[in-house]
């Protein structure tokens, strides 16, 4: 019989086993991980999170681009609600990222059904961090997944080695366009560190526009969610039901 949460690890192991059959880049003498991770095409995306009075905005652009700078689609969702109060944004390998999101959503639902209560945000973040840590071999093969995980109060960025970085300054971003966007957010937050919702939406749209201008892998179609105590709502949706669209819940 499966004990608690064992299902999650079993599914993750199976997911990893699929990919480990691929030829590995590790073992080649000239392979340097740091340089490899810096290649921006591996995580060509902009996903941003921004805190405001009473909630958090989480948004992502809709562009899926490939290694040779080819744009596959401009209408793919990169942010997904995984439970009633938390959402997940991904950068890096889209397929792997969505699978991780699905397993996370399944785990949270499984826990809720078994224990009659929702998993705490700390535990949810730990679960996700452990899952990403397990995917480190995959990251070394170039299949990086670097997610951002938010609730209505907190923003956490998770690195491929499983490190959790909390965005206590009130914002967070992942993907190749995020440095440009975060510069803009920082500048706008300097005079107003705790914006209200309307202002926060203005700031995040401006930041996305900046990222779109400066980064080839960031599109102009956006999908933005707002997370508040009362629940998750869509603020803006240009991607519609995109090609990878699925409800993870």
């Amino acid at each position, binding site marked *: *019989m*499966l004990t*608690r949460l064992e*299902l999650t690890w079993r*599914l993750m192991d199976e997911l990893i086993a699929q990919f480990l059959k691929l030829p590995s880049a590790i073992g080649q003498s000239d392979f340097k991980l740091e340089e490899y991770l810096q290649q921006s095409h591996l995580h060509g995306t902009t996903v941003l999170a921004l805190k405001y009075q009473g909630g958090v905005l989480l948004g992502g652009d809709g562009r899926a681009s490939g290694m040779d700078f080819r744009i596959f689609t401009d209408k793919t969702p990169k942010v997904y609600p995984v439970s009633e109060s938390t959402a997940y944004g991904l950068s890096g390998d889209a397929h792997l990222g969505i699978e991780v999101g*699905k*397993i996370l959503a*399944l785990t949270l*639902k*499984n826990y*809720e*059904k*078994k224990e*009659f209560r929702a998993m705490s945000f700390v535990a949810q973040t730990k679960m996700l961090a452990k899952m990403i840590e397990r995917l480190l071999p995959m990251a070394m093969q170039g299949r990086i997944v670097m997610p951002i995980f938010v609730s209505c109060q907190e923003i956490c960025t998770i690195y491929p080695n499983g490190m959790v970085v909390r965005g206590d300054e009130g914002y967070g971003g992942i993907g190749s366009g995020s440095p440009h966007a975060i510069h803009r957010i920082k500048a706008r937050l300097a005079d107003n560190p705790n914006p209200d919702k309307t202002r926060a939406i203005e700031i995040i749209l401006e930041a996305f526009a900046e990222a779109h201008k400066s980064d080839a892998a960031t599109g102009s179609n956006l999908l933005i969610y707002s997370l508040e105590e009362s629940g998750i709502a869509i603020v803006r949706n240009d991607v519609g039901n995109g090609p990878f669209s699925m*409800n993870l*819940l």
Partner: protein
Amino acid sequence: MADKLDLIANDKDNALPVIAVSTKDGILLVAINFSISPEDSDTYIHKLSEIHDNIGMGACGNSSEYDPLRRQFIDVVDRLAYELSKDDIVLKSLANSLAGELRDVYRNPRLVPRVVFFVLVECQEDSKRDRFVRIGLDGKFKIFNNFTVIGGNDKEVGALMDNLRSVEFLEMDWPTALTAIKEAIKKTNIARIAGAKKSDKTVEPFPSLELAILWRGRTGRKWQLLPHQIKEVK
């Protein structure tokens, strides 16, 4: 076999009924639950549980025996939903596997049967397609269309079924249906059994009810655990 059944006879008789009916709003599940106390009404042993988006479960018997089975069952369903899709969960085959588990133990000469009774309910958009599966401790299962009752005492279950059969639940909203169920429970006089079970004088005149509903109109997860009711009917 007779010895084994004697061993569990007392436990079996104490398993209090769970009622599931199909109403206009959705499927209403009502469990008579003694573990809900007025002093500490948040921590109690759950008899009703969500299994899938449109599938719910009611259980009675020994909670230490049905809870592991419930957890295992949820894992199986989640695994299937991940590998196939959420719409490919078929209640009948799942019920079959759960019944098989119970039957194996029941027929094994070295093991004492588990004292567990399950009802699995599936909520559909069209109320005529709602399904209720009743699984006994011997692993036999039966499918119903509009309502069903599980419980340890066969006489009581029969009487409750008779009392509920004449009610037109499909035309009621859920509070009306709940009132009708309470009336039926009152008529069946389960309070007498409650008194017999707890011999001390502080026994409640009427057991507390645990309530849950599968909303028919909703997309995605239809399950909702309603606030339970304590000593509503006297």
